[in-house]
């Protein structure tokens, strides 16, 4: 019986580190059939490559520009067949100590061939990390939100988000160009992104930077309320009575 080769992807921002892993993986091919399906310099590039190819295992560094390894691990879970993630790190990471040893594998740099091979042989038995586990990590906030559209994972940069609005099961992400649907909790997003977004309504977070001003509007029943006016989109959003202090707070900052 011929086993299908293990499809491996390498993610590291340092070219020598990628080259070294490639060499070591080559050394492992005698013991284990495997194929390198892609190399990326950061998490965002890795997600792009994974549009086209499927991978069983992602070997990723933790500290990288644009999108780090921990954030990549979260977005990978949105793929139809999420790969197993093994982190490579130069030094003990506080972030990884949150995992119990059996839940995750990580390799210390410089990586040893024997350690790598042992990890590769374990891959078929490993399951992708769970969202719950990843959310426990004391990681910094994500730079992208990932949404699934027609079986593809689309990354929406946090900087481009104008507002997030909870509707029934989903959250609508609004950017200047279009809307996306996301399956997450608004409260958790508020916690994660802290001061970047401000709650104007029970169901709505608005990017502070996008706020142009406020308008006083009179509703159908003659009751007046504030609406927030935003840069980049034409629609305005109601400010709830409970959140009215926001109008004063932002108004003062803009003076």
């Amino acid at each position: 019986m011929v086993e299908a080769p293990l499809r491996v992807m390498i993610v590291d921002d340092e070219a020598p580190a990628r080259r070294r892993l490639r060499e070591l993986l080559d050394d492992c091919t005698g013991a284990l059939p495997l194929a390198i399906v892609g190399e990326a310099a950061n998490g965002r590039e890795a997600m792009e490559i994974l549009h086209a190819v499927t991978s069983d295992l992602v070997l990723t560094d933790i500290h990288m520009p644009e999108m780090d390894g921990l954030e990549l691990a979260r977005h990978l879970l949105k793929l139809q067949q999420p790969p197993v993630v093994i982190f490579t790190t130069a030094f003990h990471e506080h972030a990884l100590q949150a995992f119990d040893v059996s839940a995750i594998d990580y390799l210390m740099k410089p990586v040893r061939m024997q350690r790598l091979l042992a990890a590769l042989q374990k891959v078929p038995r490993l399951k992708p990390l769970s969202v719950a586990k990843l959310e426990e990590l004391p990681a910094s906030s994500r730079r992208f939100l990932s949404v699934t559209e027609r079986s593809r994972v689309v990354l929406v940069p946090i900087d481009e988000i104008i507002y997030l609005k909870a509707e029934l099961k989903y959250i609508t992400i609004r950017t200047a160009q279009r809307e996306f649907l996301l399956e997450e909790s608004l409260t958790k997003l508020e916690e994660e992104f802290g001061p970047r977004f401000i709650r104007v309504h029970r169901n709505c977070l608005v990017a502070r930077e996008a706020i142009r001003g406020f308008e006083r509007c009179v509703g159908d029943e003659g009751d007046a309320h504030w609406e927030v006016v935003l840069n980049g989109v034409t629609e305005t959003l109601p400010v709830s009575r409970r959140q009215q202090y926001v109008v004063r707070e932002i108004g003062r900052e803009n003076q």
Partner: protein
Amino acid sequence: MRPIIRQNPSPPELPDFRNLGTVLRILVAVNGAAIVAAVIQAARPELWAGQLLDNISVLEPQLILQLALLYALQPWLARQPYATGAWLVAALTVACGIAVNALIDASQIVRGGDLLRALVLGLLLCGALLAYFRLRARALSPAIAEARLQALQARIRPHFLFNSITAVLSLVRNDPRQAEVALEDLADLFRVLMKDNRELTPLASEVELCRQYLALEKLRLGDRLQVEWHLNSMPGDALVPPLVLQPLLENAVYHGIEPSSEPGVISINIFFKGGDVHAILRNPYQSNGGRHHGGNKMAIANVRERLALHFDAEGTLASKVVGNAYEVHLRMPYRQSSSTATADPNRRPAGADAAPGTSPKSNGAPLRFVANGKVSHG
């Protein structure tokens, strides 16, 4: 003559009256005393300003005259035993008091004070200040200062070591020669990191060390790291604390280069100006590089404290954001290695206690950096 080799714990020394920190402390203390005196002398708050003016008009000429004389006499005073030196400073206080009093009486611009009272007050202040400097010197005694320096020894980020070794390993098969150079750089860097770093070292060697460090970083980061050196008027023989620049460059790489996938420039500008050695380090400022929080200010605080221990108020470090660059500006007094300084094994690290002969020379241009050709540009 002061003995060259001292067996006993160092005897007390007079403060270095040419040190900016000493001069500032004297100025602040004496003027503070004048304010206290004014408040005691004048009963009502509206009279305090007038009284202070009266006090200062007598006090300030004496203070400036005495500081100037102390500055001039410093090398000679420093050679006297402590007790003799202290009496000489007291005698100088009396002499200056009498001279200034006579001058004021002759000029008749301001009403002269009572001479005896001025002399007693002057001597009391002088004694208090000498006692203060004595205590301060003891607090900064070599043992304590050296213990603090030991604790402040720069530590390199462990990530750097392991990432560098990974980079070297990646070269072994394809480019063994470059791997050799990289290992040699790594060895030199760790030799300095591990040695006892309490003595000052020539600036040229610190720059060479930085070049080796950046070569290793370049190996890892490739084109993302661009380095610009401006060393044309660098005094390579100036004595600086070891590892005064390397930790700042490490910071620049960590905060300015690593968080971005785009190439970034670190520029190093070292020059001589107004009797001081200046180093200006710039790196791209990553406003969203908030991922790298830990230890952000640690390296800067560490270098600043070591500067203070070596040079007191004459060594400063300032950092600021200029447009889209982060800039660290380092200023140190120009001290040359001289035979007096190197022959004295007990030479103290604290600036206030610097041995005579190491005081910065302001006349004449500094030596040109001879090793300039070795420092690569880019």
